[in-house]
């Protein structure tokens, strides 16, 4: 069963999707936001900010704001102007014919335009037992699980801002946090590097990668290999937090929208994708900036692009006799 054809469907509900929802709702386009499914990963309603605590760099909040609180206000703001939500995952899309179709299970939704803002998710290490040990030492959510490592020794893998943020946050609980990074220098911003280097609980293991997880039912240690010397050693840690980068959530759009080699959506002339009427916003098309504020900005751009495109189609319809549905 399909409902009426809508002006716009927004897939994804991080800062990009919800800002697009605010703008399209205020433009009276009555957006349907398919906001994703609840999980403990960054691929969930509200997006990656749901797994953070203090956001100190979102403009407008002198004293910072909690990530989940920020996203709750975005969502409420869009709802105030009439945005509708489905708290489920889009399972299939057909962007090859018009109106575009988006499925949630067996439910079919149709729209004249689609804004894709499905974001990115954290990469895992891909070593053996990693998935089985989630919740038993391996964590995908430092803010959720850090508490359980009070007085323990733990490891954080990665060298960027997210890794430093997690390491610093985890020193609130852990006795010692060892950062394992595959290079000799951090990629993190100066301010985060300074905070990490001056934190007495943080140690660094350079030029190294995690090669193996030790422990059957719970994590007892990690094997670390030095990529320069090939030397292996074991860190006796009971917790492992991974922050080694991101991959875009674009599986749904494979073979339908143009992407780069890493799977990020290619956009041009603002937020246009390779299919006219489909727009991309936020981390799903941005592996460079990846900030809440840049995602929100591009969500606004996508909403304005979609609104203008819909207008141009409506006028074209006046003369070309497009079906009334258009």
């Amino acid at each position, binding site marked *: 069963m399909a409902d009426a054809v809508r002006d716009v469907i927004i897939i994804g509900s991080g800062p990009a999707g919800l800002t697009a929802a605010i703008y399209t709702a205020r433009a009276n386009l009555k957006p349907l936001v398919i906001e994703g*499914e*609840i*999980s*403990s*990963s960054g691929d*969930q*309603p*509200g997006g990656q900010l*749901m*797994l953070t*605590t203090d956001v100190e760099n979102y403009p407008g909040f002198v004293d910072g704001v909690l*990530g*989940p609180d920020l996203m709750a206000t975005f969502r409420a703001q869009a709802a105030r102007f009439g945005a509708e939500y489905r*708290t*489920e995952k889009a399972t299939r899309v057909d962007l090859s014919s018009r109106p575009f179709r988006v499925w949630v299970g067996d439910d079919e939704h149709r729209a004249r335009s689609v804004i894709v803002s499905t974001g990115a998710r954290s990469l895992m290490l891909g070593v053996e037992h990693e998935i089985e040990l*989630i*919740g*038993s*030492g391996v*964590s*995908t*959510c430092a*803010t*959720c*699980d850090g*508490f*359980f*490592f009070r007085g323990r020794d733990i490891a954080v893998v990665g060298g960027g801002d997210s890794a430093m943020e997690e390491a610093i946050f985890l020193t609130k609980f852990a006795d010692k946090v060892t950062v394992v990074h595959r290079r000799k220098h951090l990629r993190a911003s100066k301010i985060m590097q300074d905070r990490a280097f001056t934190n007495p609980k943080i140690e660094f293991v350079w030029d190294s990668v995690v090669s193996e997880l030790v422990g059957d039912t*719970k994590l007892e240690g990690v094997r670390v290999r030095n990529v320069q010397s090939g030397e292996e050693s074991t860190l006796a840690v009971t*917790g492992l937090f991974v922050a080694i980068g991101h991959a875009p959530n674009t599986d749904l759009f494979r073979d339908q929208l143009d992407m780069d080699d890493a799977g990020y959506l290619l956009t041009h002339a603002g937020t246009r994708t390779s299919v006219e009427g489909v727009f991309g916003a936020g981390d799903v098309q941005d592996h460079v900036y990846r900030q809440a504020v840049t995602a929100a900005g591009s969500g606004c751009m996508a909403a304005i692009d979609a609104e203008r495109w819909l207008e141009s189609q409506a006028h074209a319809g006046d003369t070309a006799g497009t079906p009334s549905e258009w």
Partner: protein
Amino acid sequence: MDNVTTLSDATFDEEIKATAEAVLVDFWAEWCGPCKLISPILEEIANEHPGKLRVGKLNVDDNPAVARRFEVMAIPTLILFLDGEPKKRLIGAKGKGQLLQELEEFL
């Protein structure tokens, strides 16, 4: 809510044995975002299955002993108890559909 009980270190053993229904214990904390998301869903599931399932809320901040006893190292963790015995463990937040699927045999 009638189908949702607050548990504590002191009352835990007594409460999970006091009923013939399955008790789904929700290990949670105030600072855990995903915990807040599943909380209303668990309440819904309990209310939709009266006589079958109750939800027991256990705040891990205030009740570290029970959390430690069941080796909870991530939240939300859900452990389903039947006749006082742990029968199933679910780690991480999940949507309603997925939760119902995982709990099917007890509903």
